[in-house]
């Protein structure tokens, strides 16, 4: 199953804090490797390694400018991954909304018993 393998790669890529920070930076516009390395106090080869993981996962692509080779975010793939999370979230949100209602009832019950 193509989709499943692709999603594995996407989640694995998203599991690293540096890579998430790179994606957050790219969300505000494309950037060259030098520009990306700057805020991370990391060598360019180290950043390039993270970028390769992100590219393989389809989360980042390279721009046309041959000199700067700017990287840019591929929002479509990120959207696929967040949709999975969203399903999980919706299931639990239902549970927690019921818990809210239960807690409200418990709070009034408790207050009643207080002298």
């Amino acid at each position, binding site marked *: 199953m193509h989709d*499943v393998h692709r*999603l*594995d790669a996407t*989640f*694995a890529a*998203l*599991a690293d*804090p540096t890579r998430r920070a790179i994606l957050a930076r790219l969300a505000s516009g494309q950037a060259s490797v030098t520009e990306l390395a700057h805020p991370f106090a990391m060598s360019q080869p180290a950043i390039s390694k993270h970028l390769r993981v992100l590219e393989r996962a389809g989360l980042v692509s390279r721009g046309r400018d041959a000199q700067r080779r700017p990287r840019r975010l591929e929002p479509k793939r990120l959207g696929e991954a967040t949709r*999975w*999370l969203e*399903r*999980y*979230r*919706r*299931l*639990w*949100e*239902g*549970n*927690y*909304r*019921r*818990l*809210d*209602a*239960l*807690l*409200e009832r*418990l*709070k009034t019950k*408790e207050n009643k018993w207080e002298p």
Partner: protein
Amino acid sequence: MGTLKVTTPSDREIVMTRVFDAPRKLVFDAHTKPDLVKRWLLGPPGWSMPVCEIDLRVGGKYRYVWRQDNDGTQMGMGGVYREIVAPEQIVNTEKFDEAWYPGEAVDTLLLVERAGRTTLTQTVLYESRAARDAVLKSGMEKGVAASYDRLAELLASTKR
């Protein structure tokens, strides 16, 4: 109340964070007293929780069974309590009867109270990345998606 945040901070974890407008003693009770747990921990619409047994001590077991009231489908899970710090933290294992992800997972529930409100952080640590991803993908196969599919069908048929 609060908005639920779901994140994947490492490749074996799922973390949920949410604020409740209640002291943590009540949130803790709602997670540990069977007659309270049964009232909210139900999952997709149409499911109830006929079995909820909790032996709240380190090494004690818990057992949950859910039932889809339409067709009688049952789903059970359980585990062992590893750490209990009332009303602040619970660490327990979890394993479903029908293994739909490999191995056993470890749940950590952390409750932090501030000005009468409680921030809940629920971390699930899976044995492998594959297991964690299987859970994230399960929305599709399990009940949630099924009901959305029914809704989509219904909407499609009424549009015409």
